[in-house]
């Protein structure tokens, strides 16, 4: 099948990477990249950390300068896709313009789960998803005295570290009992709890938020379910995301916690792929279960896989998932999925903040979490990507060294 036109809906990390990889791989047909945000496609990870601290400028957030899109003949369209007309293989945009496709890639991403409580729209209440969000938040964050963060996942904690570093009093409220509970082991949560506390961040666990209190339209406090009101001139929430599936749903594509795709990242329409945060795919690293992964590396890997398939080099998607977060002076890297792990081996020491947790399921390594031990992360990535498998028994030896083990077991 020769393709002459590819339309990509969503100009985030996944969508952009498909366009770039197609051109790098020699695709000569038309590429249309549709994004509903203004400006050039950009990276999101720095928005909740380095960008707020002024360590990275807006012009360095963009994936590529404007000239790149011209040179590579990637048509960047600032518009919103509103209808997929599968019968005629075309996407209708809000401007009523229509784009015909031989293949369509849906990389529509996700949006922040709203707080859905009274006061959520008061001035001074922010989620962080887009550059516009970060630009609105940055000046407020610099001057805030009392910051309340709702949710202690990656985004909330990255922001808590930023706010603490900028001198604010920071309190974090979470429904759960520990930091980044969905993503990491209790041991690693504990290390991050101690670190955040050492930066002055206070935590309120197992607490729901009843309402955000305002005066004259501006936030002044956050009321917890137990009635306590935390004073706040700035509230930032990060309580998860919801995949952007409206377009796919209305087009009759199969939906299951996102857009359902097969091992080739194809939807139930052979002319439509879905990738990135919105795609729910059979994950070999999660026992083959359909899984949706919210991460930049996953977006990049899936984009490259779809690009390769469109260029005639199809291969099932098997990339090992990985994640990272930077909080204060801590770099946490996670490779693999620890879902259902039943034993753990720790390396290094919590006191030094150089600490790794190896997670095993039925004696097989399934994930490596590393704080300020990037060597363990990379060794773990290699071990999880190819045989032989590391067993818990081997890793439990008193002088076990993950990096040395990997080097000794290279095929």
């Amino acid at each position, binding site marked *: 099948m020769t393709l002459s036109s590819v339309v990509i809906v969503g100009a985030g990390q996944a969508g952009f990477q498909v366009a770039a990889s197609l*051109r790098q791989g020699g695709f000569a047909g038309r590429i249309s990249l549709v994004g509903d945000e203004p400006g050039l496609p950009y990276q999101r990870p720095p928005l909740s950390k380095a960008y707020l601290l002024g360590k990275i400028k807006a012009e360095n957030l963009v994936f590529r*300068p404007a000239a*790149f899109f011209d040179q590579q003949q990637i048509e960047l369209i600032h518009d919103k896709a509103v209808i997929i007309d599968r019968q005629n293989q075309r996407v209708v945009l809000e401007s009523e313009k229509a784009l015909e496709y031989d293949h369509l890639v849906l990389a529509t991403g996700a949006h922040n789960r709203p707080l859905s409580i009274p006061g959520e729209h008061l001035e001074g209440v922010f989620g962080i998803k887009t550059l516009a969000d970060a630009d609105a938040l940055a000046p407020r964050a610099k001057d805030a005295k009392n910051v309340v963060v709702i949710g202690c996942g990656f985004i909330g904690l990255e922001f808590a570290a930023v706010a603490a570093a900028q001198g604010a009093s920071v309190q974090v409220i979470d429904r759960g009992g520990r930091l980044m509970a969905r993503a990491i082991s209790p041991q690693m949560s504990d290390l991050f709890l101690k670190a955040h506390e050492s930066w002055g961040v206070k935590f309120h666990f197992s607490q729901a938020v009843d309402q955000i209190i305002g005066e004259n339209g501006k936030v002044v406090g956050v009321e917890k379910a137990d009635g306590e009101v935390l004073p706040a001139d700035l509230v930032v929430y990060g309580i998860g995301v919801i995949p952007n599936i409206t377009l796919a749903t209305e087009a009759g594509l199969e939906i299951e916690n996102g857009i359902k795709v097969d091992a080739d990242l194809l939807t139930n329409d052979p002319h439509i792929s879905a990738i990135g945060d919105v795609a729910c795919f059979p994950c070999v690293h999660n026992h083959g279960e359909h899984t949706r992964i919210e991460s930049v590396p996953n977006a990049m890997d899936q984009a490259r896989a779809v690009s390769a398939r469109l260029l005639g080099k199809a291969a099932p998607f098997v990339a090992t998932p*990985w994640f*990272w977060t930077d909080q204060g002076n801590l770099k946490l890297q996670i490779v693999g999925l620890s879902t259902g792990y039943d034993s753990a081996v720790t390396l290094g020491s919590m006191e030094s903040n150089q600490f790794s947790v190896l997670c095993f399921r039925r004696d097989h390594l399934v994930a490596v979490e590393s704080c300020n031990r990037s060597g363990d992360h990379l060794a773990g990535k290699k071990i999880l990507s190819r045989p032989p498998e590391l067993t818990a028994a081997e890793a439990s030896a008193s002088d076990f060294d993950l990096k040395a083990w990997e080097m000794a077991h290279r095929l």
Partner: protein
Amino acid sequence: MPTITLIEHNGTQHSVMGEVGQSVMQAAMNAMVPGIQADCGGACSCATCHAFVEDAWTGVVPAAEDAELDMLEFANERQETSRLTCQLTIQENMDGMVLRLPESQY
């Protein structure tokens, strides 16, 4: 603008115009140099922008910090002159600098 030459493992040369303050990785990505992946976008988290600084230029680039050294330990084909290009900020004195790319970033 300083010009930096990147040489792919197969010998293909790319002369890349870089802006002062930008990373070598970013300049290489903008020029679509194959052989640099930059999966994490410059956060020193993935070690897929690995390159070897040619001997004549090793004195020009500032020393690597601990996180980069730890990552480099696991970069493929690591050498004395290995660096992660996301951590090399382009300066005026890097005009003419030559880096070689490994066969693979994984």
